[in-house]
């Protein structure tokens, strides 16, 4: 009998604010340790937290984008635990009444259909500091710059049935967060981290006992960790054992997870209402204003690109992966409106391909949308062939010269002069009498040979349409 996998995900996402959740300390990444702290985020006695209004607005915006209910009154609670990177001894979080509840995301599933993943809640909380243990013997080092940085915790329903579905959900959520501009969501910087709750059961039975894989910040590790955990749980149950509810840590070096049971024992968070913070009230007008300012979401943008520009769903998908890509594409189309599909091909295949090979991304592109459009204009007016344009683009990646200057310098201007092309064709025919005879004897396939020879003789500058047309004519004899 088969096993069914059940996965629920908790994503901690750093809200991109200038300052921390409850004090005016900078959140800038990479500062010297402990230079962005104050008595509030250091947990010194007598300090009072004051909530960052931008963190509230961005959490509401995220809630609206996942079709959730915004609670006009929500509360903060203290989550108590003891750890040196948590100087207050508690984390300010939202436990009983979060600001966002009951949302969902639709993810593509493997039948090309969509599957709805429920999102239980999004609550605001503050991050802890950073502990460092590596290379230290009897001590740990603590940097509290991150202490108090605002987070959204996005908690899904246990709606995913495979590691692939979990990754599809995470990627969709990650893209959405980036589009909304509510978080940098840079996984390497820990701005988007995931806990995965995993259990297995026989189809139709109640949920099995779950384990929680903590704090993963790469899609690849999350998939590996879930796959590993599923196998581990099935083996335990098939051997007659029982899965123990616990937190586990993924070791990406050893490719295995290990129990964090030692810490689990101490997990009794004793939540209680945060006495320093009165209820958070937001007005319906505030929510409506945030909704009115919501940017176009990835799905809407993808559909618009297909409808407005006639792109394939594949190209539309590629060009809407990030807002930056989409904006770049639209500025290219604005500069070369005659053929949006050509714009998509040249941007997605040629430009991004070259950037990818060079290990850089669009923001570092030496070729602006305007310059690329000038090149596409030359294809449009038949000044150069598509092939020659690739050579020009190669050169444009290396220099600031315009497409026209490069075309002139390299002598790549397409020859569309019938007389010049006829001269080349006649020379090729003279050099290949046997093939001419063969073609005239009925070997139509030799046409390809002649086209190739003529293009080669013209160094790719002959207008291919005209070459074909003139070849048919002249080979008739």
């Amino acid at each position, binding site marked *: 009998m088969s096993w069914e996998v059940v996965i629920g995900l908790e994503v901690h996402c750093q809200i991109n604010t200038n300052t921390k959740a409850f004090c005016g300390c900078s959140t800038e990444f990479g500062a010297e340790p402990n230079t*962005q*702290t*104050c*008595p509030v985020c250091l947990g010194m006695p007598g300090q009072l937290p004051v909530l960052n209004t931008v963190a509230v607005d961005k959490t509401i915006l995220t809630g609206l984008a996942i079709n959730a209910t915004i609670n006009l009154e929500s509360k903060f609670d203290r989550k108590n635990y003891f*750890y*040196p990177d948590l100087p207050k001894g508690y984390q300010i979080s939202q436990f009983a009444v979060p600001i966002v509840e009951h949302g969902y995301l639709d993810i593509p599933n493997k039948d090309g259909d969509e599957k709805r993943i429920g999102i239980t809640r999004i609550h605001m909380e503050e991050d802890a500091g950073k502990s460092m243990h590596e290379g230290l013997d009897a001590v*740990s080092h603590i940097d509290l710059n991150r202490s108090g940085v605002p987070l959204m915790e996005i908690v899904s329903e246990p709606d995913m049935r495979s590691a692939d579905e979990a990754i599809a959900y995470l990627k969709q959520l990650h893209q959405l967060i980036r589009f909304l501009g509510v978080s940098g969501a840079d996984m390497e910087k820990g701005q988007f981290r995931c806990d995965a709750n995993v259990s297995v059961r026989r189809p139709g039975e109640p949920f099995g006992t779950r384990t929680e894989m903590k704090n993963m910040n790469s899609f690849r590790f999350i998939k590996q960790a879930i796959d590993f955990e599923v196998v581990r749980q099935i083996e335990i149950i098939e051997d007659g054992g029982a899965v123990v509810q616990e937190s586990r840590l993924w070791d990406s070096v050893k490719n295995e997870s290990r129990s964090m049971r030692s810490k689990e024992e101490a997990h009794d968070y004793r939540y209680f209402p945060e006495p320093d913070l009165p209820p958070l009230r937001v007005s319906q007008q505030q929510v409506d204003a945030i909704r009115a300012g919501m940017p176009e979401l990835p799905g809407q943008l993808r559909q618009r690109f297909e409808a407005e520009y006639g792109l394939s769903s594949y190209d539309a998908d590629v060009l809407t992966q990030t807002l930056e890509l989409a904006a770049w594409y639209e500025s290219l189309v604005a500069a070369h409106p005659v053929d949006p599909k050509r714009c998509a091909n040249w941007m997605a295949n040629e430009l991004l391909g070259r950037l990818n090979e060079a290990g850089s991304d669009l923001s570092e592109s030496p070729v602006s949308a305007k310059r690329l459009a000038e090149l596409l204009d030359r294809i449009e007016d038949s000044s150069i062939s598509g092939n020659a344009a690739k050579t020009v683009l190669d050169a444009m990646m290396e220099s600031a010269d315009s497409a026209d200057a490069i075309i002139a310098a390299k002598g790549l201007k397409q020859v569309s002069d019938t007389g010049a092309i006829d001269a080349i064709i006649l020379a090729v025919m003279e050099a290949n009498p046997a093939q001419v005879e063969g073609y005239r004897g009925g070997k139509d396939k030799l046409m390809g040979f002649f086209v190739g020879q003529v293009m080669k003789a013209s160094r790719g500058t002959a207008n291919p349409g005209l070459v074909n047309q003139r070849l048919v004519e002249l080979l008739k004899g």
Partner: protein
Amino acid sequence: MEIDVRKVAMLSRIRLTDEEAAEFGPQLSSIIGYVEQLAAINTDGVPPTAHPHDVAMPQRADVVTNSNRRDALQTPAPNTESGLYVVPKVID
């Protein structure tokens, strides 16, 4: 209500002698017992509240107002090194 004094002490990182545990257990229980009198009050129709004052939370503009005061702030720390707090070893 019986209180597990040892557990509470462990969670709070407070070391208790057996005598202290024996002394504080009944004290904590009697405090809880006193507060439990509230359970007898009929609260039908009273909305739950988490805060005694009927005020909405004041909020703060997202503007950096604090500068680096590391040296002053680290004065009370028992041990620092290169700007980092040094604590007894902790590891997951």
